[in-house]
């Protein structure tokens, strides 16, 4: 039956498709809630009033809609359009539930507020950059390109550190891990290794550093803050031992360079790495059993243990994850920046943890969102960028970043106490 709905769906009419999806969800959820507000949607302008029944019939047939709401009892809704209906205008569709109560709680647990804040800040900055284009060069292409290249390097590290923080542990060694694994990779490529093999080796080093952090922390039962503070020094020294204090230049072309630092349009490869990792990590945390275990061991290790979750194994995974992602960020940075400086990236741990805190990841573990971590990284970069553009001296940057992290942690603490979040 080529009903109006089918035609509309075929034409990609988004509102109708959305309505159909919402109807499908509703039939699976806990049942209709009579009298609830309907989904606000637009009636396609080109559809006449008489097409209403046609759409409803096809919705009913496609989705086997069993129940109607109170106002429009009978399957499939009313045969004619409700009064007040005008083509092309917003209106309530009483058949479809407004955002369900489940979705409302899930939204509250997402980084929605931070997303809104981030977008507002961006809009404000772009407007300011356009108005005072000479004194505040936010919108010039060089600034945007630098941002797109720099945010992923912090963001990828932050996602790794954030997953570890969700599990209730910290990693301060991501900075020296970042340098050590990338410098070993660069040296191996210099010795004639295939770049891909060398990069895998670099990732393995990162994973190994994470594993060691985890083993030390869990075996000796010391706070990971102390463990990784110690291993920071060890791997920084290891860098000097295998390489010396001179900078390693790293010039590479070919498929490896394209994959790590090429561009599609204005978007650098790092951006896609971060997006891919963010989606994968989101799936891990929110949709996978292991993610559930990570939240559980971070939120209440005793309770997790009592239900049979292996706290050690779960935390060990998180340590390895953080180490691997730090190494990946180092490898991506190596091809982008073309030099690796031993002794660099000392503020990376602070920035990565700061990005997570700004993104709403709990310092005591048990909660956090990937979106928040990525947005936190972007916001941290934004602060630095704005300060630089306004001509603030470089040494003030760290102070601002530090202050921002403290303020964010305090605000989240207050919000948690008042049960806003």
């Amino acid at each position, binding site marked *: 039956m080529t009903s109006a709905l089918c035609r509309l769906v075929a034409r990609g009419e988004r509102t109708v498709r959305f309505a159909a999806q919402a109807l499908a969800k509703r039939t699976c959820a806990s049942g209709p809630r009579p009298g609830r507000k309907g989904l606000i949607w637009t009636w396609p302008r080109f559809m006449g009033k008489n097409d209403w029944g046609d759409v409803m019939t096809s919705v009913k047939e496609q989705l086997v809609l069993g129940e109607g709401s109170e106002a429009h009892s009978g399957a499939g809704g009313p045969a004619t359009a409700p009064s007040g209906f005008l083509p092309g205008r917003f209106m309530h569709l009483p058949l479809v539930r407004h955002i369900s*109560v489940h979705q409302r*709680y*899930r939204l509250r647990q997402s980084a929605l507020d931070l997303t809104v804040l981030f977008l507002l800040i961006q809009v404000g900055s772009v407007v300011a950059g356009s108005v005072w284009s000479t004194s505040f060069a936010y919108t010039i292409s060089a600034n945007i390109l630098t941002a797109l290249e720099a945010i992923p390097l912090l963001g990828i590290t932050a996602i790794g550190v954030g997953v570890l923080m969700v599990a209730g542990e910290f990693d301060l060694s991501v900075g020296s891990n970042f340098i050590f694994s990338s410098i070993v990779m660069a040296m191996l490529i210099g010795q004639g290794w295939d770049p891909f093999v060398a990069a895998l080796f670099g990732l393995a080093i990162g994973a190994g550093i994470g594993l060691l952090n985890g083993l030390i922390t869990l075996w000796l039962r010391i706070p990971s803050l102390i463990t990784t503070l110690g291993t920071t020094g060890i791997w920084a020294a290891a860098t000097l031992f295998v390489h010396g204090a001179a900078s390693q230049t790293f010039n590479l072309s070919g498929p490896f360079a394209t994959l790590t630092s090429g561009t599609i349009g204005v978007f650098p490869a790092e951006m896609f790495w971060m997006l891919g990792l963010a989606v994968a990590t989101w799936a891990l945390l929110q949709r*996978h*059993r292991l993610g559930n275990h990570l939240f559980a061991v971070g*939120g209440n290790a*005793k*309770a997790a243990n009592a239900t049979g979750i292996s706290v050690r194994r779960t935390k060990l995974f998180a340590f390895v994850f953080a180490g691997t992602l730090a190494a990946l960020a180092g490898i991506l940075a190596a091809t982008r920046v073309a030099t690796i400086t031993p002794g660099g990236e000392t503020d990376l741990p602070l920035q990565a943890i700061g990005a997570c805190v700004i993104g709403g990841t709990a310092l005591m573990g048990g909660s956090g969102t990937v979106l928040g971590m990525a947005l936190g990284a972007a916001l941290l970069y934004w602060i630095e960028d704005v300060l630089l553009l306004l001509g603030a001296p470089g040494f003030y940057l760290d102070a601002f970043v530090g202050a921002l992290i403290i303020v964010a942690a305090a605000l989240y603490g207050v919000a948690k106490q008042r049960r806003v979040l």
Partner: protein
Amino acid sequence: MTPEASEANGPVLLDLRDISKAYGGSPALDKVSLTVRGGEVVGLLGDNGAGKSTLVGVISGVVQPDSGSLRWEGKQVSMRSRIESAELGIETIFQDSALVRSMSVSRNMFMGRELVGRFGFLKQRAMRDASTEILGTVVGIRGVDSPERLVGGLSGGQQQAVAIARAVYFKRKLLILDEPTSALAARATAALFEYIASLRKDGLSSILVTHDLYDAYQICDRFVILERGQVALNATRDELALDELIRIVCRG
């Protein structure tokens, strides 16, 4: 014979014989024997330091007794962790280590026992629907409108009810509730005890460690009072009036 008492005459579920445990020479438990039958609610009372926590630890597998035997459904068993006791069907609900506050009710329900599809990915909808169903059946849990709510946002009584509902869902046979009402208001306590009592008809037994004598008296079939590591009293409710119980506990 009251209906409660006849219900409590199920087969023997847990049988402790002469359990002793000493910490560094000072005895915490001294030849304690305790029997719990199917569908029975046992009130475990006693002063601080009387050995209640140690006894709860022994039954939940956390504490290893120095001597004595532990029989579960007629078979000699030894448990070395809470996980092993859970495998037998014993669930211990401690106030602060039952649930993860930063996780949703649904995630807590299936914590460690997630319903998963291919590659370990969660069956979100199945877990949510099951949680919704469980929440709908629980007496003391009204007001939890969605399994997506964070446990930390629930009241103390609701949290206890969620923990108990989880044990019921996973077909536990014996619940050990350690001071379940110490942080609850009177109304929540009554609701929670009503819920615990309602589980009896499904054959679920409970050991209730509590100070709430008045409320406990309404639902317990039997009272065991510990005193300096020994069983000072083991009596069914029929044999013991509330005044008498209070007098014994207060004298204790």
